[in-house]
């Protein structure tokens, strides 16, 4: 059912993901501005608010790079560059409709591996500048990783189990009749949580928290900051987008073409995540880890068990 997209798709992919990230960031900025400055008076005002991330990107581009005393520049640069790289590499297995840049037999494992690269990225970025607050931010993400990764892996394993394959295309094909989200709701919910957590954004944005003056990004200015923050939005889009083939039936849907369904579903997931950000304060890991390990892990294990029983009786 699924097929590999032509070669040029690989070249287009980063830009497509960036564009999606910019649109998402724009929507996020419009939502934040409504809280900050009241509802927008006119469509023009709304557009101007939504353009804030683009303006910010331009502003950071003309800013001189800076560094700190005894900084490890190589580590920091590696960390900053790694984040968008990881996001785009993870995006390579995202099918648009039924076509992805590549659809390897271990697509789900590939996605997971790329997403974990973000741990290294944030930690290196936090470590590099030789600054206490920045280091605090870096370590916060490692703690976050320990908390969210276990339930997350069980959740995506459950989807693979339901399809009896680690190939993303196969997972989509198996959802032609029934979306996985409907008969594995716990796994889906946990996946949504961990999508936010892996992009260290919104309620899971503590690694870049305001209380630590920007955390891992505290000492980043200019283009480096742009790359890191842009990478974070891209990662969020990819993480949200991966919920579609895993749980929401990929490109399956009536009337509309597959690629449009994929986009619509991705937009819906992102809208839910933006609403979650609006509704929740920052989740601190010293409180969340206990919840993750005592509630979410058993929950996802039970979900996997239930799915396994169904699959065995097929």
């Amino acid at each position, binding site marked *: 059912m699924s097929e590999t997209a032509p070669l040029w798709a690989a070249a287009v992919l980063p830009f497509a993901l960036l564009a999606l990230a910019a649109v998402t960031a724009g929507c996020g900025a419009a939502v934040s501005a409504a809280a900050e400055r009241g509802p927008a008076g006119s469509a023009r005002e709304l557009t101007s608010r939504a353009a804030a991330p683009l*303006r910010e990107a331009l502003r950071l581009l003309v800013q001189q790079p800076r560094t*700190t005393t005894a900084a490890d520049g190589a580590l920091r640069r590696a960390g900053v560059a790694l984040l968008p790289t990881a996001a785009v590499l993870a995006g390579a297995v995202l099918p648009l409709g039924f076509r992805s840049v590549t659809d390897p037999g271990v697509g789900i494992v590939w996605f997971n591996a790329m997403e974990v690269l973000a741990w290294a990225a944030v930690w290196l970025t936090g470590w590099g500048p030789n600054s*206490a607050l920045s280091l605090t931010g870096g*370590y916060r993400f490692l703690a976050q990783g320990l908390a969210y990764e276990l339930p997350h892996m069980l959740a995506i394993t459950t989807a693979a189990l339901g399809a009896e394959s680690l190939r993303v295309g196969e997972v989509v094909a198996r959802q032609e009749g029934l979306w996985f989200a409907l008969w594995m709701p716990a796994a889906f919910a946990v996946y949504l949580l961990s999508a936010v957590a892996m992009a260290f954004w919104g*309620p899971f944005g503590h690694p870049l928290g305001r209380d630590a003056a920007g955390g891992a990004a505290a000492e980043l200015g200019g283009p480096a900051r742009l790359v890191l923050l842009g990478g974070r939005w891209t990662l969020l889009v990819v993480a949200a987008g991966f919920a579609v083939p895993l749980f929401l039936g990929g490109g399956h849907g009536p009337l509309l073409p597959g690629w449009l369904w994929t986009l619509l579903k991705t937009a819906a997931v992102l809208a839910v995540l933006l609403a979650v950000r*609006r509704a929740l*304060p920052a989740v601190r890991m010293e409180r969340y880890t206990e919840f993750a390990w005592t509630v979410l892990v058993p929950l996802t294990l039970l979900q996997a068990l239930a799915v396994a029983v169904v699959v065995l009786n097929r």
Partner: protein
Amino acid sequence: MDLRDRLRRAALSRPGVMLVALPGATPVRLELEAELRRRGWPRSESPAAADLLVVAGERDPIGEDSWLDGIWEGVPKPAVRLAVRHPGDAAAALDTGHRLLREDAGTRHDLAPAVPPSGGESAAGRNGRPGGGRGERTDDGAGGHHDDGGDQDDRGGHNDHGGHSDGQGDPDGQGGGQESGHGDSGGGDGDGDGGHGGGHSSHETHEMSGPAGLPMAERAEDRDGLTLDRLHLPLGPALPDWPAGLILRLVLQGDVVQRAGTETLPVRRRKDPFWDEPWLRAARGETVPRAEAARRRCAAHLDSLGRFLAVAGWDDPAARARRLRDGALSAEPGDRLREDVVSLARRVARSRALRLLTAGLGPLPAAEARAAGVSGPAHTAGGDAYDRLLVWLDELGRAAGQFGDERPLARDDRTGPRGTLDGAAPPSRGLLDVLPGLLSGAEFAGARIVVASLDPDLDELTAADRREAAGV
């Protein structure tokens, strides 16, 4: 070249602003925050991403506040630093800074130098600021000195040579910034670095004995009896959502606070503490409508609430709280405002997630609070950070109910937003005294929430002396 220029101007159409408030300058900070929000300029949490460093309040005339220079050194080009002394100057000062940024992105413009250079008045005149003459506003602020020569440029020059390529050439600036969480009281590591700032090369970075001359973490036993690294970290005075003028000297193991000590910057202020004004004025016999006191209390709590929520990472209601705070301070009609305040309070109180995340932090039983001289919400709550938040929300609702009350405030009503104003010491003194005890054993993020839940107002600190002097 033309295209690059145009691009740069477009990029700086809304400059990033780092706002640093000095103690005693609450009205200036509020005006600046409101003005920045009106303009939609992005706020920067650290100097790294800022274009404009705005200091609210008066710099120490003898240059004791050199931590400000540490932050300034951390602002990459294009950069403008300016000071705003009077609330009314905010808009003009921002305009000036914006103009300088757009005109000349290649220079670092310091309009608020450490020690005002001689001939300052003429410099102000040269910049065409009409009101820059002598008088109450002895000016180094808004219209400032566009310093295009002399020692200030030298300071900028350091950054030009070593700054952005490898950063090793910066004297105290980067050291101060990175050691201290954006600002140091001046006597600490940041300054010590200054002496040999240019000397070390990047090759020394990985040597064990103090990289680049910076002190390493020492070791000490942790709470489980293990010998672990211990880091001395000063927090403040220029962190986001931090009480102006507070410096917390933390001893950290990992991110657990072992010990904490408070220091405060000296308060330079001629008037009553802003948040306590209505009650102090009423105590002096002036006629103050209750509505005004209610609005002030409401705004004070909304300010604290905004900080608390921002530190807790809940940006949406934090932003709302700040918008309503400015509404309460302006002449916004009471009915609409009351509704908004009540609905915000209800929304925050209803959040189970917020309760789960902040309950149990910094418990302060009522008896202990009283013994330490704490009155007001922290005493009423008699519990943890979340309880103190609930008291704010409760008082918010009640204060909002009095927006239309035009009766005069009773002379003996001295219950200011942070506590009783006729005690031996100002309410914030008590809050500062209990703070170190509440912080030891807390995680870093928890410590910040505890500080935000007490939200001491350092403007109050000299109030007691002032009252004695005035014979009230």
